[in-house]
């Protein structure tokens, strides 16, 4: 099992690649089928944001193992325009209805831990963790 898997994100086909790798890693670690789907879906959403808004970036997947239950850490990084108002982006109802959705509130709900750092003009980094039950 590799320690970290990195998937460059530049085209929409990479979105599929990233989420498949996420699912495969989750399956390897013994996550339930449902959690595998949640992880793959969350990765799909953040990867898509990279393609849509930042043109290119990277998804990195790594295993969390500190003696307790295992987990997966997903980091989505880009050097795109950044998110001007993170609080608003994380509000339900803001993103999902229209076509300019960021899918962030949903991704946050599906994960156990979710952090987002973004600076307009510099880029965005999203860190999300899901633990095996």
């Amino acid at each position: 099992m590799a320690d970290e898997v990195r998937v460059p994100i530049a085209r929409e086909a990479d979105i599929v690649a990233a989420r498949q790798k996420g699912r495969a890693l989750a399956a390897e670690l013994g996550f339930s089928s449902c959690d595998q789907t949640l992880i793959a879906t969350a990765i799909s959403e953040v990867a898509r944001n990279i393609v849509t808004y930042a043109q290119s970036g990277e998804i990195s997947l790594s295993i969390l193992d500190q003696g307790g239950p295992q987990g997966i850490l997903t980091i989505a990084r880009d050097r795109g325009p950044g998110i001007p108002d993170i609080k608003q982006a994380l509000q339900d109802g803001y993103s999902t209805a229209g076509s300019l959705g960021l899918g962030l509130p949903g991704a946050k709900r599906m994960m156990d831990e979710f952090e987002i750092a973004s600076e307009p003009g510099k880029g965005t980094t999203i860190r999300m963790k899901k633990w095996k039950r």
Partner: protein
Amino acid sequence: MAELPDRSLTHKMGLTREEITRRKEFLELDDKDVERLRGLHDLAGQYANAVIEEFYNHLLGFREGREFFRDAAVLERVKVAQKKYFLELTGGSYGESYVESRLQIGLAHERINLPIQLYLGMYNFYLRAIASRFLDAQKAKPAEAFQNFLSVLKLVFFDMGLAIETYIHERESTIVTQQEAIRELSTPVLRLRDRLLIMPIIGVIDSHRASQLTQHLLQRIRTDRAKVVVMDITGVPTVDSAVANHLSQAVQASRLMGATVIVTGLSAEVAQTLVRLGVDLTKVRTVGDLQEGIEEAEQLLGYELARPPAAEKRDDPA
């Protein structure tokens, strides 16, 4: 010193380095004690065998003790392990590997269901055996002998704390497992008749349980090919907006699988409160009680069955 593997018992039980240090501080177990203990190692080596033999003879004098050591081979193995343990008390190294090894021993005893009384009784025996021999070996300097004994006392209490902790940890893990099992049992999904499921929910719903319930329900919708689910929440003590949102999600997810959910047992007052709190209940079909819910479900199913599909037309090559 080599790092302990991440999956060690110390890590699993959440014992940090800081915590271990604090415990030693609390017991006032310091470097002087460590030095004294180390200095006693040779002495301990001289009478280790005798102490161990005496201890097991003592233990085997009791029915409970005999029950654990009926097998002679097991008894031999345990004696060897105990001797090693005994010598480690004066080994002079009381860091992370020491702690880990104590926890492992505690765990091993808990797993064989050795009552904690017997386990603590063992420590008591060691202390008395050591006390008498120290006094004997250092007759000329009783004050020093007493200091040595106090150092051993501190370390033994440190050990006992770890032993008790493993017992607690194991018992708590069992409780958690059993609670999970109870939760599973407390939400049966019953197939009332063809295509109709009933799900009476009892007890508090937190977000973890809500996820479990929903996932379980969705699986059952698939295996039972259910078209209607009656979800009764009479047995849910508090229905606040969080619970209502969970229910709403379950309803929507079921719809995605082609099943209609009828929620029953939601009193009018609670419904009003939820609406006032801004919870969107428009997509949730609520009906008075379970009985009414079942009747409505049957109506729904009957309605669909009363309009039979034009079966012949389907196979016509167009």
